């Protein structure tokens, strides 16, 4: 049985726990500290804002990193996770932008919604997203699957043709939510589902299991637990993934190498690859949804030194023992974690959207969903 000392007395203060932890792990901590000038965070409380509900994917991800960062940041500060839910992450991030100080004692988790609300110029947005300083980006693939009643073939291309022919009913959260990339993909392929909006992930999956929806998608974090059983018992059939970017090219998702990507399907159906403005918009959505799925950031004007400290700690955490557990693996999937400059690259790519692409996206939202700004 594996009982860690730190868990025996949850009611005991965090600092006392840390003391025990330091005593137990002893020398092991030394390697995390790079030999540069740095701010010592010992005895400090770092506030981590997670703009989604307790229990959400972002919270599990954020909490995992909170544990890792607590251990590997210089001075082993205590990290307090605060969930400020609302407005598709806008409320929490607005608060972060307004109140966080660039002293390394405030960090935030951002996710797909944070980007879309910003890029689509949601009037509630009060944060300047590009000024944030990212230090970690965790990618997550997406799998689109259909019910075996709607998609009867073993061939994904054939199945997509069937869905174009017989539009399924499809439940989603909303056109400007984190579902946007998948809705865009359907639209580009020519699948025109009958949409039912306002549903959470859990509700759409339940509706799918009951046979009320013919089409659904899930983050790969849910694959083993929720989607694979449906595929195994013959309820669901994978259609395509959004793919994964490696060295500037979009390849098949490393967790599902047998399933074709959206781009492959598009080419097979249309006889030519997706290109031009449509590719540009789709790629921007892909960058946000897959490559920059979950990120951790420091506020604007944080010094390079502090950002580097956090990046180093995140890297040490990813390589540390605590991230080797089954739970951690299930939280992060098999995807490579990007820290420091790599995270910055992903962040910048996610924010890149030309005015032309944005205009196209607005037109698309208006003509398909009657959403106007």
């Amino acid at each position, binding site marked *: 049985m594996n009982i860690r000392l730190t868990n025996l007395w949850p009611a005991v203060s965090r600092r006392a726990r840390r003391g025990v932890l330091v005593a137990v792990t002893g020398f092991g901590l030394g390697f995390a500290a790079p030999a540069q000038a740095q701010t010592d965070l010992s005895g400090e409380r770092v506030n981590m804002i997670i703009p989604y509900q307790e229990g959400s994917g972002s919270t599990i991800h954020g909490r995992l990193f909170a544990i890792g960062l607590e251990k590997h940041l210089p001075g082993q500060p205590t990290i307090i996770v605060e969930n400020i839910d609302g407005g598709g992450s806008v409320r929490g991030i607005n608060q972060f932008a307004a109140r966080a100080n660039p002293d390394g004692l405030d960090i935030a988790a951002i996710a797909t919604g944070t980007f879309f609300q910003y890029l689509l110029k949601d009037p509630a947005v009060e944060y300047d997203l590009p000024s944030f300083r990212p230090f970690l980006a965790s990618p997550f693939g997406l799998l689109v699957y259909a019910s075996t009643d709607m998609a009867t073939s073993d061939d994904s291309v054939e199945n997509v043709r069937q869905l174009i022919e017989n539009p399924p009913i499809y439940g989603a959260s909303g056109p400007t939510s984190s579902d946007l990339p998948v809705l865009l993909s359907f639209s580009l392929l020519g699948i025109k589902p009958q949409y039912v*909006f306002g549903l959470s992930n859990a509700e759409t999956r339940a509706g799918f299991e009951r046979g009320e929806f013919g089409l659904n998608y899930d983050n790969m974090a849910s694959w083993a637990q929720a989607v694979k059983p449906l595929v195994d018992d013959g309820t669901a059939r994978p259609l395509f993934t959004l793919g994964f970017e490696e060295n500037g090219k979009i390849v098949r998702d490393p967790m599902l190498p047998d399933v074709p990507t959206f781009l492959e399907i598009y080419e097979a159906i249309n006889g030519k690859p997706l290109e031009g403005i449509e590719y540009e918009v789709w790629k921007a959505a892909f960058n946000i949804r897959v490559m920059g799925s979950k990120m951790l950031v420091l506020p604007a004007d944080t010094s390079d030194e502090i950002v580097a400290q956090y990046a180093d700690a995140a890297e040490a955490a990813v390589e540390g023992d605590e991230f080797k557990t089954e739970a951690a693996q299930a939280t992060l999937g098999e995807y490579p974690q990007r820290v420091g400059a790599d995270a910055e690259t992903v962040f910048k790519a996610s924010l890149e959207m030309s005015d032309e692409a944005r205009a196209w996206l607005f037109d698309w939202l208006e003509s398909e969903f009657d959403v106007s700004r």
Partner: protein
Amino acid sequence: MDATIFQYAIEALLTLLSPTHFLYLFMGVTIGLTIGLIPGLGGIAGMAIIMPFLFGMDPGLALAMMIGLSSTTSTSDTFMSVLVGVPGGSSAQATVLDGFPLARQGMAARALSAAFISSMLGGIFGALLLSIAFVLAKPVLLAVGFGEQLMLVVFALTLVGMLTGPSMAKGLASCCIGLLLGTIGASQATAEYRFTFDTIYLSDGIPLVVVALGIFAFPEIIDVLRKHARISEAGALGGGWMQGIRDVLRHWWIVLRCSFIGAIVGALPGLGGSVIDWIAYGHVVQTSKDKSRFGKGDIRGVIGPESAANAKEGGALIPTLFFGIPGSGTMALLLGGLVVIGITPGRPMVTSHMDLVFLIIWSIALANILGTAISVLLAKPISHVTVIPFARVAPFLLVMVFLSAYQATREWGDLITLVAIGVLGIFMKRLGWSRAALLIGFVLAPRLEAALYRSVQIYGWDLFLRPISVVIMVLAAISLIYAWRNRAHSVSDAERGEYEASLGTLGVQIGFTLIVMAVGVWFIATLLQLRFLAWVFPVSVCALMLAFCAWMVFGMIRRAPWPGLITDTEAGGDGSTPGSFRLLGWILVLPALSYLIGFIYAAPLYVLGFLRSKARLGWIGALSGAVVILLIEIVLANVLLLQFPEGYLQDLLPASRFIYRLW
């Protein structure tokens, strides 16, 4: 096969009874009970607190702790509901209706022990159901689609007929107000904002805690203060806890039926935990021959909802564990917790983690027993709060109400909305509008609208061809007819005096109804600028509300002696009791002071001032009250990591940051 299941069950029980497991379960129970005591903090807050400790923990221990916690928050939330008339949590809303009147009659201990014992029995029933669920659950859950969910919500709404109070039109209009409050925020179908006044606070809707506290707490606190009384009008505790146990045994059939309702509704999608106690309450009223005592202190009105409240935890675990689909907010967190400790809920759970399934089942049962034992032991001493002069209790209670409301979203919006809803509640109580109907409307609004929209999108008219839908629909119709046939149609002789006295303030009563109507018209005007799917539901509700109100105004002008129509509980007073609004001023000092110097300073000062000038305590007593509040704040800030509303001048008082950092 059977033998192996049995074996798993025994092994799991032995594991749970080992010292470490038991210790963790006990810790979970303790945290759950403590958190449940604070109104507005429930299983969700508790889970959030223990989440950081779960990473890397042994799954069995973590499970024992999580289940211990989530099973007991709805046990202890009863304390607040019964003793002070403030809903202690979403599963103890209905308990207020009869529990608090019992406390006022000096039978707090009886009401509490009846509540605890019935919630324990309910909890054990839920665990039992869970243990047979993995054979039966799947076909049942797969049969309840969006169409059936809609019918369930409609069915729940017809139970409002039972809770409308003497005047049906008033009750239904109250329900419409609740439904409208519940549509505030982004529309499900179009994501357009309704009545948010461009505030981000309202864009996600008003939190349930804020509505429940405002609508119940304010009017009740003011009511007791007005009469300068103790909560227990009898002045003594009376009716010990044995009586409560006897009550439960006498009404075992209610316990069984309501446990069943709780567990089933908890397992089914679409209704959610915060409606369950209302459904149970409605059911008890509906099936009782003598309805005259309900709302005035009928012990059955406590037993029913409390049995359902704890049974729902076991029920809600069924979809959570076997499908990976959370049945409630707490369950969503539990799901997150399970993932964290490396257990993947869903179908594999039954085949590969049978031991854990039984560990969970036993944990629920044991947690309920432990939680009840502790609560029953505490019932008698805590009940003493009802015999202390209320002016000494009120300031602490108010601090708690404001602090709890603020935990909903941690914005000033929480407090502003609390006050607004509170003022509405004061009028509704005074003029005999059903606050329970408002709350049930509020809870059901988003579910009703969503289920309506989804069913129409997915099924269209086919909805009425689905057998289960039709069955539920017929049940709803029967329940409605039943409600209608069972009510009086004219003022009884006993109510004559009140009717006559109330005629004196007819202007106020008509005025309030007209204000409600004006707001309805204004809502319609603003709504029509949105897209069809965003306005169709709230506009229909507004139209209904206007119709009910118009009918009432018609009756009031004719001075019709319809039951409950012309009612003013403050009319005909001899002028010796202060009016509600002077006392409202006393309440508002707390948020006003907090806005200036921050809650953390305002609360002790407020308690000091209140105890000195209103409760007329000496300096020593008042000061020690203030110190107690300060100590509580420090504990809450550091152990539960609660936050306090910040004030305008707070930054000038540096010590406030220090209070957060004591640990």
